């Protein structure tokens, strides 16, 4: 998931209204933009959907890094299509957030000045072509784990955005796994690159689900409101159970010596990531935090004259049309 550690906002609304609202959610009704909703629900959603949108946009950077150096023309067009999809996903989500009373520019500015976060995973560098495989397979794979249940989230516009995104996301994971297959079945040097990519992306991918349930203070209210559908640990377990056999098929080794099948729970036991590293990356000290934010700020600043120019042109045309009438 692209939204980690989203703080739930406290709500001080009329208890009677709150009870009616909760009953609607419990009955599986969707909440729509202009309807009454608790202030905490609205604020938590803005934070969560905004963080999700920012992650889609910043997530273009580590992959964009390889577009000009893709090994074949076909891989290049596929990667371009994937990165274009990520831009689209960001836009669907920004639109959903905007229905809650925040503007697109406000959201962008909050990302650019660090008031809003994006997923920790995008603060890791993509060093080799095999990383394009690992990102699609593991990072998009982890995102899908979270996004599929979110299609049933209680907020209508968010749910609809998730449905669109999920339809497109499966291509992302499969193209990544396909790259991994090619590399793992290639020369010894290529296989080594694939293994190295798995080694570097395994734990950061596990971190995407956020801290362990026992340390996750924000879950209860969000789950009650159905803006979070599963706990962090549930999703992490599901991800590991699905991914380990995929790694075995590739002939690659998950970098966790403690990893083993637990018959009793019907899932794998696995090592937790280094949570101090996670909190450090969230705080801004990951390998690429500075670079990512600098790239987004530059794009925003460099594009200002285009945004303003097109707006001025549109106004000029509108005035000319009015004058002609």
């Amino acid at each position, binding site marked *: 998931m692209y939204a980690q550690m989203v703080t739930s906002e406290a709500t001080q609304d009329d208890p009677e209204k709150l009870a009616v609202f909760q009953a609607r959610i419990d009955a599986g009704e969707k909440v729509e933009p202009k309807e009454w909703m608790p202030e905490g629900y609205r604020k938590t959603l803005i934070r969560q959907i905004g963080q999700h949108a920012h992650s889609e946009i910043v997530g273009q950077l580590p992959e964009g890094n390889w577009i000009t150096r893709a090994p074949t023309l076909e891989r290049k067009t596929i990667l371009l299509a994937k990165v274009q999809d990520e831009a689209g996903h960001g836009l669907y989500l920004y639109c959903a957030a905007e229905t809650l009373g925040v503007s697109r520019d406000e959201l962008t500015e909050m990302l650019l000045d660090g008031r809003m976060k994006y997923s920790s995973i995008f603060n890791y560098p993509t060093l080799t072509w095999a990383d394009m495989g690992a990102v699609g397979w593991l990072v998009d794979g982890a995102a899908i784990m979270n996004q599929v249940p979110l299609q049933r989230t209680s907020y209508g516009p968010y749910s609809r955005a998730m449905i669109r995104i999920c339809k497109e996301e499966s291509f992302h994971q499969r193209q990544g796994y396909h790259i991994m297959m090619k590399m793992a079945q290639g020369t010894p040097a290529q296989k080594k690159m694939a293994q190295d990519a798995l080694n570097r992306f395994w734990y950061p991918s596990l971190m995407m689900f956020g801290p362990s349930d026992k340390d996750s203070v924000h879950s209860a209210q969000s789950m009650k409101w159905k803006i979070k559908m599963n706990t962090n640990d549930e999703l992490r377990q599901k991800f590991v159970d699905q991914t380990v056999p995929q790694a075995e098929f590739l002939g690659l080794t998950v970098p966790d010596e403690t990893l083993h099948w637990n018959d009793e729970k019907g899932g794998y036991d696995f090592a937790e990531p280094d949570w101090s590293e996670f909190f450090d990356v969230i705080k801004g000290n990951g390998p690429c935090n500075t670079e990512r934010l600098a790239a987004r700020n530059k794009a925003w600043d460099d594009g200002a004259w285009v945004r303003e120019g097109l*707006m001025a042109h549109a106004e000029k045309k509108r005035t000319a049309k009015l004058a002609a009438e």
Partner: protein
Amino acid sequence: MKHEWPLWEVFIRGQHGLNHRHVGSLHAPDAEMALKIARDVYTRRNEGVSIWVVEAAHITASSPSGKGPLYEPSESKVYRHPTFFDIPDEAGHM
């Protein structure tokens, strides 16, 4: 200068002759750009053969609090559905 591009709502008609359907929204400076952006954002996988865009500010929507008075009256008018009428099988297909 602080001047955000206005919001547009996007409607797309799929391949099979159905009505245009609301698919989402986007920001654009004018209608022409809105169409171009809609094409990139909402039809990357052959989702449609026709796009409508309309500035969101020009849409008038019913208010959620009006739900009851607007829609409840039709709940008691079951005779508007064909299944209300019992027609004997002997009358043949109808």
